[in-house]
Structure formats: C-alpha cells, structure tokens
C-alpha cells in the first residue's frame, strides 16, 4: 500500500510538473546553499591544513611584542636584532636555521610598467626555511647579503606584471628610489590560506632593505626552521628560554616577544573558517525553512484545487487516513526530490567554486545525508497540515465543488 501511495504521489507530481517545480524551488535553493557552503568551507579548511603541511610544520616565527595574536596589543618592546638570529642558530640544537624577515609595500617600476607589491628584506636562509626554490637565476650570495647591494628575487606575479613572460633576470627594477638588479625568479606558489597572493613579492637582502628602504636596523620577524629530530614544541620552549635570557627578562615577568608555530596558526584559521561556515549554513538553513513554508503554501492550494478529486476518492471508498497519507506522501516525495536536486546543485556549485578558489573539493557524506533527511522532514512537517485538511473534507461538499 505504501509503495502504491508513493507511485500515486509521483504520478500526481508529474501531472502538475510546472507547479511541482515551483513548489520545490525553495527546498532546492535551501539545500543547495547549505551543501555548497559546507563543502566550500570544508575545502578551505583542508586547504589551510595542506598549506601548513606544505610550508612545513617545523616552521616557527619569532616576533617582538607580548601577548597573544590579535589587536589591542600596544605595548612597545625592543625590536629583534641580527645577533638574535646568530644566537638562535649557534646556541640551540633544536634550531636548524633562521632568517630575518622585514616587510613593506612599495611600487615596483620597470620601464613603463608599475605594480604595487610586497617587498621583504631577508636572506638566502629564508628560502631554505620555507622551502621555496628559485626557478630562474639564483638566490642571494653571501657577498650581496653583506655588502648591502641592491639585488632582488621576484615572485611570479610581479614578473607577470612587469615583464610578462620574458626572462626578468638581469633587468633592473626600481623600488621607491632604489634601482635593484633582478637576480632570480621564485617558483609560483599560488594563493595562501589567507587568500593573499604569495607570488606578489619582491625579496631583497636584509641589509640593503634596512639601509635603502626602511633606514633602520630593526628586525621585525624571524623565521625559524626547527630541527627535524625535535618536536616544534621543544623548539618553541628552547627559543623562548634563549630569548628571555638575551632580552634580560626576569623571573615572573612576561615575555615581550612571542613565538608562533604554524600549527597554531592553522588551527586559528580553521577555527575562523568553521565559524564562517557555520554562520553561512545557518542562514542557508533559514532558507530551507522558507522553502518548507513554500511547500505548505502550494500544497494548500493543491488541496483546494483538487477538492473534487478528494471527493471522488472518498466516494469510491478511500478512508480519511488514506487521503491524509496520500497528500503527506506527496509532500514528502516532492521535498525529497527537491532535496536530491538541491544536493546535486550544491555539490556542483561547490565543485565550481573549489575550482575557482583553487581549494580542494571536499564533499561531506554526513552533511549530504543530513540535508536529505532534513528535506524529507520538511515534507513531513509542512505537508501534514494541508494533508489533514484534505482528509477532513466532507465528501458531499467536495463532490459538489466545481
């Protein structure tokens, strides 16, 4: 009997194809939105994790300034120095290597082309820490690092902006008022998990950067690669102890620097992504609710329109419960069809978005199952009232209805 009812429901749905499509549109959009949100959110979470793994989980950053990450930190603390880097490498076995990293934003000019880009002062060890190969030309030589000569290695985006596809090595780029010889091109990395273009960068030796760009000898950040043989947690503790000693911080006083580990950063980013995904999904879920109300609306119209049909069914011996079941099943089948279409549409949208955003396409079977069950539940909840109205019809009135 139930299979028969489902068959009848499908018949009734296809008999009024246009109305059925309009009815389920709300469900389709709601489910598609939830599925797309969650799938894209999952994809960007996965991307963050993958990025961090690619960058190396053994990468640490040392920054001046106390406290946690985030705004509201106004305490002035001493900058880092080149000597700190030397001490970290020389004195700690848990540190494999380290590099300074100062960054600013400048216009880079070549001929008539110009582009606004990130300019960082660092040294050859940075490329080692973050495992970033130079694909054309070469890295910095020790002599260049020591002499403060203005040379630079550029990222793929900067090359495209200034040189197109031609070889930039040997050309001269002007940064602010510094003429800088291009000695290398970095491998293309794509967007970071922050969404910023990692290839939009110009690297200079730290000394040249300090002298010619910022005019100060401060180091604003140190990149550290922990030794493969020790845990990063161990390395963090070692670095903190050494830095406290070097900066003469007494017992009980708070650090005026902090050491960040990429895993922390990753979990923070994943956390943000999850909160955003949750919020957007909640909004999408509201549209599912609206879709459900749409189903109820149309089912009520349908019940009124089919009054005569209901009268006929009652006259030929349908019980009120059979009529109730028929309309209820119709609403459920309708919203489940909406759910399936919505799932397919949502996955499709997520796949396209993943492709555009260059993140992995990570469909979550659990969410798909939940969305499907939810759409069926919408059918039950919002189909019940119209179905009950159909079942309670007076057959005489119903048959007289024109």
């Amino acid at each position, binding site marked *: *009997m139930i299979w*028969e009812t489902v068959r*009848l429901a499908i018949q009734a749905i296809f*008999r009024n194809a246009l109305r059925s499509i309009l009815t389920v549109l709300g469900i389709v959009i709601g489910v598609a939105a939830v599925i797309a949100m969650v799938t894209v959110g999952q994809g960007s979470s996965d991307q963050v994790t993958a990025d961090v793994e690619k960058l190396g989980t053994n990468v640490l950053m040392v920054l001046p300034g106390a406290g946690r990450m985030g705004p509201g930190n106004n305490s002035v603390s001493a900058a880092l120095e080149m000597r700190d880097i030397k001490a970290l490498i020389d004195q700690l076995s848990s540190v494999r290597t380290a590099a300074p990293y100062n960054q600013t934003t400048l216009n880079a000019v070549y001929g008539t082309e110009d582009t606004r880009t990130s300019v960082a002062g660092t040294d050859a060890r940075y490329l080692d820490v973050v495992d970033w190969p130079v694909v054309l030309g070469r890295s910095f030589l020790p002599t260049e690092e020591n002499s403060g000569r203005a040379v630079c290695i550029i990222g793929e985006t900067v090359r495209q902006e200034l040189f197109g596809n031609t070889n930039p090595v040997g050309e001269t780029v002007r940064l602010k008022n510094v003429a800088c010889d291009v000695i290398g091109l970095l491998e293309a990395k794509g967007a970071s998990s922050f969404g910023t273009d990692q290839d939009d960068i110009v690297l200079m030796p730290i000394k040249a950067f300090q002298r010619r760009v910022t005019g100060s000898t401060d180091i604003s950040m140190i990149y550290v690669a922990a030794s493969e043989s020790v845990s990063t947690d161990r390395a963090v503790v070692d670095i903190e102890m050494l830095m406290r000693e070097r900066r003469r911080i007494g017992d009980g006083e708070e650090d005026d620097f902090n050491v960040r580990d990429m895993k922390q950063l990753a979990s923070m980013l994943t956390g943000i992504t999850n909160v955003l995904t949750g919020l957007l999904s909640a909004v999408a879920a509201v549209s599912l609710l609206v879709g459900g109300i749409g189903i109820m609306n149309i089912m009520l119209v349908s019940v009124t329109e089919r009054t*005569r*049909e209901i*009268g*006929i*069914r*009652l*006259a*030929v*011996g*349908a*019980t*009120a*419960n*059979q009529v109730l079941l028929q309309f209820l099943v119709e609403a459920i089948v309708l919203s489940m069809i909406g759910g399936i279409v919505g799932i397919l549409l949502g996955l499709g949208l997520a796949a396209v978005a993943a492709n555009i955003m260059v993140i992995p396409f990570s469909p979550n079977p659990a969410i798909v199952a939940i969305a499907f069950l939810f759409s069926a539940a919408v059918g039950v909840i919002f189909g019940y009232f119209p179905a009950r109205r159909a079942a309670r019809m007076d*057959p*005489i009135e119903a*048959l007289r209805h024109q």
Partner: protein
Amino acid sequence: MADDTPVIDLRDVTKIYGHGEAEVRAMDGVNLTVAPGEFVALMGPSGSGKSTAMNMIGCLDSPTSGDYLFNGVHVGALDQTQRALLRRNYLGFVFQGFNLLARTSALDNVELPLIYKGLPAAERREQALDALDKVGLKGREHHDPSELSGGQQQRVAIARALVGDPQLILADEPTGNLDTKRSLEIMELLDKLNADEKITIVMVTHEEDMAAFAHRVIWMVDGRVERSGSHDEVFNHERRGS
C-alpha cells in the same frame, strides 16, 4: 443476513441543515425500503430532498434523527472510517458529471477503488479490464477522459462503480449530461447490470423516460415521500393531480 432484509431501510429519517431562521428540512420523516435486486428511481422537483436522500443512502451523510439501516446495519452508529469501508465494499457511485480523474487513463480510473481495497496490481488490472469490457469499452483502456465522449466517460464511471463488485449502485442523474441516444444506452447498461449481475440500483433522475427503466418510482416533495409505485402509477397520478 436473511434474504428478505432490505438493502436500504430508512426509518423516519429527518435531515436538517442550518439553524434557526436558516433551518432547512431537506428530509422530513422519510420512510423508505429497497429490497435486494430492485431498480428504483428517485424523483421529484428541485429541492425535494432527493439528493440529500441519495447522500444518506450512500453513507456520505448521516441523519439528524431517525435510523438508516444498510443490510440491517445501523449506519448512524458507524464512524467515518467504517462508513468509508462500507462504501468501498458494498457501494458504487455514478454521478451526473462523471467525476473521473482528469489526465488519468480509463483503466487507472477504474482501478482507483481497488487501490484503496489494497489489491495487488495484477489483480487490479485484471478486474478493471473485466469491468471495462462489461460496459463495452474494450480497447479504450488507455484513453484519458478528455479523449472519450460523454457516453463513454459515463461508461468508465459505471465500470468504476462496478469493479468493486458492489451490492448497490447509486446513480445521481447519470444521464443528465447526455443526449437522448447516449442516455438510453446508459440506461440499458444499468438495466443489464441490474438483471445480469443482480446489483440493486437507486437512481436519481428528473427525466420520465429514464425513470421508465426502473421497477419502482419514488416521488419526493418537500423532503417527504409523496408517492411510491410503478412508473405508470406515479405518473398517471401526477398528470391527473397537477
């Protein structure tokens, strides 16, 4: 159930719609019995209560006072579901406007009562084809109502009434929408079902010619049975009296 138990036994049945000023006595103390195998025509002017009586007999309505016994069973004591089961198993309806489901083949229309009976598909199909054959629509099983003439649509409706093997067929102005030739064909079909299948038939009509097919004519006025007898008795009296 003894053979002499009437199929229909209305005892002092009154049906009142509305209250106070708007009160309408659609049936006012109706006594009426119909024996198994009878073919009865229910007649009377508009508003005489014949449609209300028909709904009452069809277990679609219940009396305000008085009793209705169907095969000796008090219908008034049955709940909605039990009345639906009674309609399903003992009654067949034929309406003036055919009341077929639109965009649904003749076969599916005829199968409808059997679906509610819970018959398996193969059996349903067999019985529905059989019923369509009996009403002379073999070969039209897959036509939609819109592809059939009025006479053919009414035949489909009769097949639908017939398919559940009912004891009683209730026909409410079955020829009201048909021309004379089709009307006579439908009446011949009903007459044949009455004679061959021993189905009791109660028919509402306002056409004398159609009432002539019935064994007995019941003439209602103002919610009461005014006369009951053979066609000639009733109509000769009508002509003399009014």
